[in-house]
């Protein structure tokens, strides 16, 4: 298809607004367009009704009294005016339709921007909350709660890597899961850990795709698992479960994956802090022993 010059969106809006008879069209508004449309068709309907009344009057009044005026020509003129009026209204209606579409597009763009800002704001808040903790237990709890709030999830778990295993260190909605171990590569979480790819489960998970899969009790209709990776190092896996009757989407999966990047950074920092604390404690202990000795 050949490219050719087309009017810019504001130019088109202004042109259509002028045709439709919308003056002072500074602030685009769908409501103003609808109001103008009602006004246009009310006026057109009134004018057409008047024309119809005149035509009927011509039919009722005895023809010999108006014959001198030329009935045919008058009727032709009246019908012509009616037709012209209808075409005029149709022309304006076409412009109003284009305006409605353009303004709907503008609203869609505004809503998309608002959604994006809302997401960024939620992620920023979650990041702030996570970075406020250096104690691992508190941090894991914050990560899980923030993830559930972000995605309206009812529960989930955080699993951390310990050598060749994934260990559930924090759980929401199923406390019994804490302490459970599974080998990397086993089940959905193990698959996510090995592949480092987020996974969305809708319905029953496929045991062929996830070797070593253990069916969960109670059954979870929709769930997501994302890897917690910081600087190419796998920290663990974050799992969240949807409430009954709701299914997560690919969109939710992307949001959780973005969240997981921040969570992985916070976990890496907390691990570093724990290691430093242990190091300082060991040094203090050594110093104490020397002083005693």
């Amino acid at each position, binding site marked *: 298809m050949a490219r050719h010059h087309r009017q810019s969106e504001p130019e088109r809006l202004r042109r259509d607004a002028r045709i439709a008879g919308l003056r002072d069209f500074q602030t685009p508004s769908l409501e103003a367009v609808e109001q103008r449309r009602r006004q246009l068709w009310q006026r057109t309907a009134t004018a057409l009704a008047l024309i119809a009344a005149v035509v009927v009057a011509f039919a009722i009044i005895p023809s010999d009294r108006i014959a001198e005026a030329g009935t045919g020509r008058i009727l032709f003129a009246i019908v012509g005016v009616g037709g012209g009026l209808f075409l005029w209204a149709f022309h304006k209606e076409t412009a109003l339709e284009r305006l409605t579409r353009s303004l709907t597009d503008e609203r869609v*763009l505004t809503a998309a921007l608002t959604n994006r800002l809302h997401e960024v704001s939620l992620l920023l808040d979650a990041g702030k909350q996570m970075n406020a903790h250096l104690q691992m237990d508190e941090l894991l709890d914050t990560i899980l709660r923030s993830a559930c709030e972000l995605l309206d999830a009812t529960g989930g778990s955080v699993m951390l890597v310990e050598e060749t295993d994934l260990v559930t260190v924090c759980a929401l909605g199923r406390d019994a899961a804490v302490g459970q171990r599974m080998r990397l590569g086993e089940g959905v979480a193990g698959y996510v850990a090995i592949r480092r790819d987020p996974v969305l489960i809708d319905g029953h998970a496929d045991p062929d795709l996830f070797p070593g899969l253990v069916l969960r009790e109670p059954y979870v209709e929709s769930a997501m698992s994302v890897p917690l990776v910081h600087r190419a190092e796998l920290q663990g896996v974050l799992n969240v479960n949807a409430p009954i009757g709701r299914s997560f989407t690919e969109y939710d999966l992307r949001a959780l994956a973005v969240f997981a990047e921040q969570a992985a950074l916070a976990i890496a920092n907390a691990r570093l802090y724990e290691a430093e604390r242990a190091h300082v404690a060991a040094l203090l202990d050594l110093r104490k022993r020397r002083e005693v000795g």
Partner: protein
Amino acid sequence: MVAPRVLIAEDDPDTLVILRVNLNAAGFEPMLAGDGHTALERIETEAPDAVLLDVLLPGIDGWQVLEQLHAKGNSVPVIVCSGKDNVHDLQRARELGAVAYLVKPFDIDRLIEVTSEVVGLRQTDPVTERGTAPDTELA
């Protein structure tokens, strides 16, 4: 000649604007939808000639939109746009009646070319063309 109307269903505001400007310049009349519900509503009420459907949409995602269109027997040609380049998603799009599958980031000229072809396809015989849509468009 009336410009073919193309609905762009995409959550990213920047991509929405870029696609709108480019499709407009290429002679299409773009319409926008930032989420799945709006996309379905505009497809049903405004009957566009083609749909560029991003998989990642808030509310109901692109797959669910495609499923609902398929279930309702709506024959609007849909071009699925996804960041994933895998056989599973490609197969899924094909099964749900999509006429083309484009992997992001896509070349804008290629997108316009595919959209032009799709709009042309619809004007001939949507059912036959859908069934015989070339693999190149779904790859």
